[in-house]
C-alpha cells in the first residue's frame, strides 16, 4: 500500500527545548493515524513540520509523495490543516472565510462561492454563514475551521487536537465529520490527548512523549499493552460491597479494588464481560447506582508504557520507584476524571 505520510528521524529544537528527538511516523493512504501524547509531547511540532509550517532540524518527511522541505508547494496542494486553535478570521463571516480560501486555492469567484455553500451545508453552518465567525460558539468555529481545511479536497488532512475544549456532544459531531472524511478516502493524521478519541477514530495509534515515539500499535493492541478497560461498579448499599467484589473477581484480570466505601473497580480484558456481570449482580440482588466500563486514561497509558506517571509533558521523572502502591493511586485519581491530567 502507498504511504500518504512517511516521516523518518524528525528532530526539532527550540532554544533549549528538544521538541522532537527523532520521530518516525507512517500512515497508509486512506487510513487514520492517531498521535497520542500529553501537552508538550511534540504533537503540534510534528504536525507543523508535516504541514510545511516548520522545517525539521534533521530527518525527512514525505507527504502525498512530496518532500516537505524540497517541495513544500506540492505538499500544500495536497493537505488540509485544522489547528489546535481554530484559525479562521474572526472578523469575516463564515462564508467570506471559505470563499477567500477557495480563491486563494485558485478557484474563480463563482466556483469558490459554490464550494463554500456546499461546505456550509455539509457542516450545518448555512444559517450562520452570514455572521462574523467571532459570534460563533466553540463547536461552530471548530466546524468552520474543519470546513476551511477541506475546500481544496485535500488527500491528507491534519487534525491537531480537534476536540480539545469541546463538550461531549460537540465532540461527537466532530468525530462524525472525521468518519465521513475517512469514508471518502481521505488520509487523516489526528493528534489528541485522549485515548478514547484515538480509539474511536484511529486504526493505528502512535504514542509520543518528550519528542519520542514510545509505542505504536492498533488501538486493540495498545489497550492490551496497557491493561485493557476498567469496570467500575458503585453499589447502592455499602453492605453489598463484599458481594460485588466477589462478582467482579470472577470477570476481572486482577483482584478487584475497593475505592471509598461503595466503589469496586477491576481491570477487564474486553466488553464481553459486561452482560455476565450485570446478570450476576442482579441474581445476587445487588442494587447498583453506577456501572461503567472505561478506557484507561492517558495517565494510565503512560504509566503502563513508561513506568512513570505522565506529567503533562513536563520533564523529569515523577517517581523512580514505580510500586504497586502508586499504581493503585493512579487509578484512584483517574477514576474521578478521565482527563489523564490527574494531580
Amino acid at each position, binding site marked *: 500500500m502507498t504511504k500518504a505520510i512517511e516521516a523518518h528521524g524528525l528532530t526539532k529544537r527550540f532554544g533549549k527545548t528538544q521538541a522532537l528527538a527523532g520521530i518516525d511516523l507512517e500512515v497508509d493512504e486512506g487510513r487514520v493515524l492517531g498521535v497520542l501524547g500529553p501537552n508538550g509531547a511534540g504533537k503540534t511540532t510534528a504536525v*507543523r513540520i508535516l*504541514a*510545511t*509550517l516548520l522545517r525539521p532540524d534533521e530527518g525527512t518527511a514525505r507527504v502525498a509523495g512530496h518532500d516537505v522541505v524540497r517541495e513544500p*508547494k*506540492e505538499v*500544500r*496542494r495536497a*493537505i*488540509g*490543516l485544522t*489547528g489546535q*486553535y*481554530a*484559525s*479562521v*478570521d*474572526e*472578523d*469575516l463571516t463564515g462564508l*467570506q472565510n471559505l470563499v*477567500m*480560501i477557495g*480563491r*486563494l*486555492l485558485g478557484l474563480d469567484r463563482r466556483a469558490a462561492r459554490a464550494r463554500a455553500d456546499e461546505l456550509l451545508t455539509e457542516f450545518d453552518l448555512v444559517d450562520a454563514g452570514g455572521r*462574523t465567525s467571532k459570534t460563533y460558539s466553540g463547536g461552530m468555529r471548530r466546524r468552520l475551521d474543519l470546513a*476551511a*481545511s477541506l475546500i*481544496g479536497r485535500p488527500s491528507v488532512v491534519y487534525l491537531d487536537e480537534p476536540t480539545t475544549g469541546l463538550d461531549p456532544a460537540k465532540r461527537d459531531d466532530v468525530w462524525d465529520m472525521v468518519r465521513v472524511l475517512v469514508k471518502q478516502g481521505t488520509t487523516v493524521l489526528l493528534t489528541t490527548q485522549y485515548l478514547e478519541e484515538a480509539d474511536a477514530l484511529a486504526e493505528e495509534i502512535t504514542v509520543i512523549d518528550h519528542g519520542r515515539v514510545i509505542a505504536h500499535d492498533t488501538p486493540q493492541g495498545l489497550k492490551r499493552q496497557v491493561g485493557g478497560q476498567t469496570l467500575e461498579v458503585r453499589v447502592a448499599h455499602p453492605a453489598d460491597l463484599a458481594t460485588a467484589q466477589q462478582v467482579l473477581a470472577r470477570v476481572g484480570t486482577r483482584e478487584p479494588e475497593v475505592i471509598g466505601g461503595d466503589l469496586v473497580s477491576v481491570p477487564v480484558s474486553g466488553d464481553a464481560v459486561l452482560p455476565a456481570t450485570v446478570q450476576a449482580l442482579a441474581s445476587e440482588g445487588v442494587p447498583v447506582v453506577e456501572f461503567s466500563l472505561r478506557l484507561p486514561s492517558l495517565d494510565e497509558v503512560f504509566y503502563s508504557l513508561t513506568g512513570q506517571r505522565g506529567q503533562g509533558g513536563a520533564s523529569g521523572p515523577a517517581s523512580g520507584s514505580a510500586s504497586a502502591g502508586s499504581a493503585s493511586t493512579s487509578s484512584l485519581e483517574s477514576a474521578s476524571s478521565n482527563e489523564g491530567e490527574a494531580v
Partner: protein
Amino acid sequence: MRDSLILAQRSVTKMFRKPEQFLDVTLQPIIMTVLFVFIFGGAIAGDTSNYLPFVLPGIIVQTVMFTSLTIGVNLNTDIEKGVFDRFRSLPIARSAPLFGAVLGDIVRHAIAVGVTLLFGVLIGFRFHTDPLSAVGGILLMVLFAVCLCWVSVFIGMVARTSGAVQGLSFLITFPLTFGSSTFVPASTLPSWLQGWVAINPVTHVIEALRGLLSGQHYMAAGSSLGTELLWVLGWCVALVAIFFPLAMWAYRRKV
C-alpha cells in the same frame, strides 16, 4: 499578485466590519484639526484663517503616519491568532499575506487623507494651487504611507505582543511628527532642534504637501517644491531599501 489582491480584499472587508478601526482615520484628524486651528491657531499664527493652510497639510501627514504604523499591530494579531498558519498551509507565495495587508491599507490611507481634506474645506481651507498639484499631493501621501509602513511591519514581526507594537510605534511617531514643522514654522525652534527638523523626513513631506496644496507661500523660507519632492522620494527609497528587507527577514523568521 492575484493572491495578494485577494488578501488585500480581506483586510478591506475587515476594516469596514470594524468601524472603530476607522476612528484613527476619521475622528482623530478632525479633532486634531479643531484643536490646532481653533485653539492654538490664533496664538501661533495671529488668526485661524492664516493658520489653516499652514497646519492642514501637517495634520494630513500626521494622520497618514498614524495609519501607516497600525499595520504592524494588525499583522502581529493575525500571527498570534493563527490565521497566518492557515495561509501558510495553502499553496500561495509566502509573502502574499504581507503584501495583501500593505495593499489593503492603501484604502485606509486614502480615507485618512480624504476625510482630513474634506473637513479642512468645510472649515474654510481652499486649494491655492491647480487640481493636478492637489491630486499629486494626495498620491504623494499614499506613496509615503506605503513606504513608511514597512517600518511598522518590521516592528510587528520582531515585537512579542501587539501591545508592544503599539507602544513602539508611538515612540517613533512622536519625535517624527512634533520634531518637524508640522505645527509651527521650523524657524521658531531652537537651533539644536532645527538640525533634527532639517533631516526629519516628515518635515520634507509636510513642506512638499504645503507646496502642493497651499502653495509656495506657506512653505518654509528658502525651500522649493522641487527640492522637497526630491527629499521625499529619496526618503521613500531609503525607507523601503532599509525596512523592506528587514521586514521580510523578520517575517520569514517569525512565521
